[in-house]
């Protein structure tokens, strides 16, 4: 009912409270509460099977929560009569009818929400598919389908955008393109929520993180906060006598990992302390370098206890 030209001012966000989805006796999502706020890119990070997609389907009213509630802009999805104007989403880029052209796919979506047909052309230009507007979606590469899905999400010019694993299967150009579009949408003041199991991608795209594993939220905060709270920097040392050095470092309280060629990866001690220990032991160092803690380290630390299928390195008893 918004008259043309009137600008509504609202706080837009996604808000979940005690959201739970159970299949039989297995919890896909277990009592999670979070909010996704405007102006920043919020990453939903977790290993495959952690409950990211289930959560997103519940946000969209596609799956019914076992208990709990989730609202977008203060309203339940099922109460929205023109949802594409409120939240644009891309869940699965392959979920298009292969026989329909890109323009017609967007056209029926536009009609369903009373969006002007001119907008179809606009979003096709935005995502760079204007030249193939009249080609069937079945002839598209995954990257082109991904762009079509993003065009569909942008169609209603919504204040909230949500993408499930948007960079899966994209080439490097496509990844950079998506990363930039996410950031510019957030910079326009929109709420941007994207899921990924790729920590490195999140480190480059997201400002804020919600980390989920086994259906539970195990951390929230800015990328820097999560990294500094959950990962420590490590120092790589090479020397002529790694065995002795290792002994001394462990004695000083370090945790070390032996690598190839006598390389030692040391955490728990600063490079200055390591240097002086080596000096006192009269062991010449050929390399001493510090690696900043990464989101990957933090993520592994966080999910260490919650990963369903953990590799059991060194578990074999030997012969």
């Amino acid at each position: 009912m918004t008259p043309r030209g009137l600008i509504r001012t609202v706080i837009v966000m996604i808000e979940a409270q005690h959201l739970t989805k159970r299949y039989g006796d297995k919890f896909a999502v277990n009592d999670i509460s979070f909010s996704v706020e405007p102006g920043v890119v919020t990453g939903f990070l977790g290993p495959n099977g952690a409950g990211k997609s289930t959560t997103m389907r519940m946000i969209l009213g596609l799956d019914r929560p076992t208990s709990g509630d989730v609202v977008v802009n203060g309203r339940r999805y099922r109460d929205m009569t023109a949802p594409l104007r409120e939240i644009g989403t891309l869940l699965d880029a392959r979920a298009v009818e292969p026989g329909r052209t890109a323009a017609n796919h967007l056209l029926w979506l536009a009609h369903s929400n009373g969006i002007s047909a001119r907008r179809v052309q606009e979003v096709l230009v935005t995502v760079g598919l204007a030249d193939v507007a009249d080609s069937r979606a079945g002839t598209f590469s995954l990257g082109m389908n991904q762009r079509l899905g993003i065009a569909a999400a942008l169609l209603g010019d919504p204040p909230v955008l949500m993408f499930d694993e948007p960079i899966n299967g994209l080439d490097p150009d496509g990844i950079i393109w998506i990363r930039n579009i996410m950031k510019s949408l957030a910079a326009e003041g929109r709420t941007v929520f994207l899921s990924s199991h790729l920590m490195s991608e999140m480190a480059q795209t997201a400002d804020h993180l919600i980390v989920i594993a086994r259906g539970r939220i195990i951390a929230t905060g800015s990328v820097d906060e999560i990294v500094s709270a959950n990962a420590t920097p490590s120092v790589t040392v090479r020397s002529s006598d790694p065995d002795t050095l290792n002994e001394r470092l462990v004695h000083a309280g370090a945790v070390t990992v032996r690598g190839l060629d006598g390389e030692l990866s040391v955490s728990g001690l600063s490079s200055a302390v390591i240097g002086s220990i080596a000096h006192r032991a009269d062991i010449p160092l050929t390399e001493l370098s510090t690696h900043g803690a990464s989101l990957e380290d933090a993520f592994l630390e966080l999910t260490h206890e919650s990963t369903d299928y953990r590799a059991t390195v060194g578990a074999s008893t030997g012969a």
Partner: protein
Amino acid sequence: MNTTTYTADVRSRPEGPSGDGSQRPVTAIAVGPVSRGTALARTFRAEWTKLRTLRSTWITVGVSVAVSIGFALLNATSTVSEWADMSPKQRAEFDPTSSSLIGVLFAALIFGSLAVRTMTSEYSSGMIRVTFAAIAQRRRVIAAKASLIATIGFTVALASNLLAYFPSQQILRSKHIESSINDSGVVAALVLGAVSVAVVAVIGVGLGTILRRTALAITTLSLAIIGGQIVGLALPESARTYLPSSALQATVSVHRAADLLSAGRAVIVIVLYAAACYAAANLLVSRRDA
């Protein structure tokens, strides 16, 4: 217009909002006026766009018309050539009207399958989630699909009935066994045959929604429409007349055989099947996860 435009070559992020920016209100910008007819009308328009933008819809229409007319003419021609050899009983039972409307069974099968696929193809491609995310009121989606295909099915079947009826009677005239449009029950057969195609389309949307898999739903539909002889073997004779396949046959019959319902009753029977199917679909679609 006050729509925002995004540029394809998005520059690297300008010094965007951070810190205190996370809580600031956002201006939501309209994409044209929100209200373009009611929500139900928008759903109809969207589903119509979906249907008309698929080549398979138009192939279905073409095949239905061609098959309906083709089989009617074939039926008339073979009756004329075999008339001399037919027994008195066969001649007495011959119904020139229903023999030229044999296409109704094919049209019911063809449009029923199209109706099934409007649901099942979305389930198999995953597009059903795109649809239900765009139109959160799922029952509206089913209502729109069912009524659109029913309307197309009725229109196409009525046209093919007329195009099949007149030339077939022309052929039958050589043996003086034709019926006339003015005969009692003929107009009813032409119209009710088309109505039953529309009703089967509703059954198709219902089955597609309930079963969600194309092969399963089309097999079920085919058995219902043409499997009367197979399923009927297991049933007492009195029950057989109420099978969808028998009822469908009855809608286009003028010379009524003893084991057929009247055309009016037959339509009511098919409508009841459709209502049951549609009600179950309505119940399930809003309860199940998409």
